[in-house]
């Protein structure tokens, strides 16, 4: 059953295209993969090359809602998770993305774009775990 009330094909497609453009530009101009967990994780590694561009990219991400807010009010968000869930989730995302060498951007967008079988397996893994977790939290516990 589809959730037509929340389905936003056009804005989601437009946002996706923008994500694609940023990924393409960082790749072609800087020669770098726009993988958020990899960029962030590289900042925690003192030997990693090129700290400057990483900090700049993260600052751009951080500044995005402020720039968006200049043009239009930010879309409303709903965060159902409580504090304990957020902490457990954050730890899992932090350890998991570094252990698995990527997240939705690095494996999901860049990896699938270059038809990497490694990224396809990673994307299938995190999608599967996401589906199962939401099923457990929403339908078995909740």
């Amino acid at each position, binding site marked *: 059953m589809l959730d037509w009330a929340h389905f936003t094909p056009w804005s989601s497609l437009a946002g996706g295209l923008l994500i694609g453009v940023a990924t393409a530009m960082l*790749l072609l101009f800087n020669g770098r993969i726009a993988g958020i967990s990899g960029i962030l994780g590289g900042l925690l590694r003192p030997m990693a090359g090129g700290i400057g561009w990483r900090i700049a990219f993260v600052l751009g991400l951080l500044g995005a809602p402020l720039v968006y807010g200049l043009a239009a009010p930010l879309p409303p968000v709903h965060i159902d998770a409580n504090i304990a869930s957020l902490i457990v989730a954050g730890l899992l*995302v932090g350890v998991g993305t570094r252990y698995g060498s990527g997240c939705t951007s690095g494996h999901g967008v860049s990896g699938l774009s270059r038809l990497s079988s490694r990224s396809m397996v990673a994307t299938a893994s995190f999608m599967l775990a996401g589906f199962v977790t939401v099923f457990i939290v929403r339908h078995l516990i909740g």
Partner: protein
Amino acid sequence: MQVLMALLNGLVFGLGLIISGMTDPSKVIGFLDLAGKWDPSLTFVMGGAILVGVFAFRFAATRPRAILGGPMRLPTARHIDRRLILGGLAFGAGWGLAGYCPGPALASLATGGSKPLIFTAAMLAGMAIFEIQDRLSAYRRLRPRRSGAAAALHGAPTLGAEGKIRKTYPHNEIMTPWVRLQSIPGQRNERQ
């Protein structure tokens, strides 16, 4: 110039995340909730990004260098191992639990109140735990297993009387374990 370009692309990436709806955890969970009322919007986010990405990566494959200079750093890892799958499963579980992945969490920090802050702090702690664990395991791999003459014969590192490690990779000098930890190049860096 490279730093400015990275800043611009971080900004465009973040705007894309906001416009697409990825910064709303309930929308992400609506996509992951196959058994409930399913919101397929995120397939359009992925589809749009990959549509542009496919052409970008094809073009990038024909260029040896980036436009602003420096090598084209395409991932080289090919292997599919337990680490990749277990990491993906752990990430997916966290993603489903909170509705945040790393990009949207960062793009929500400035305006989202305390919840994205708590999530991001825990995520950075998780990444730090990985860094420490990764370096410790790299250190253990290089630690001496044999002692004395046998080790010298095989060229393996040996422990000096004061507990410091002698004649070890990557430097031919006496280093404390901590210095060695810092000097071991990342085993898993930049693999996607």
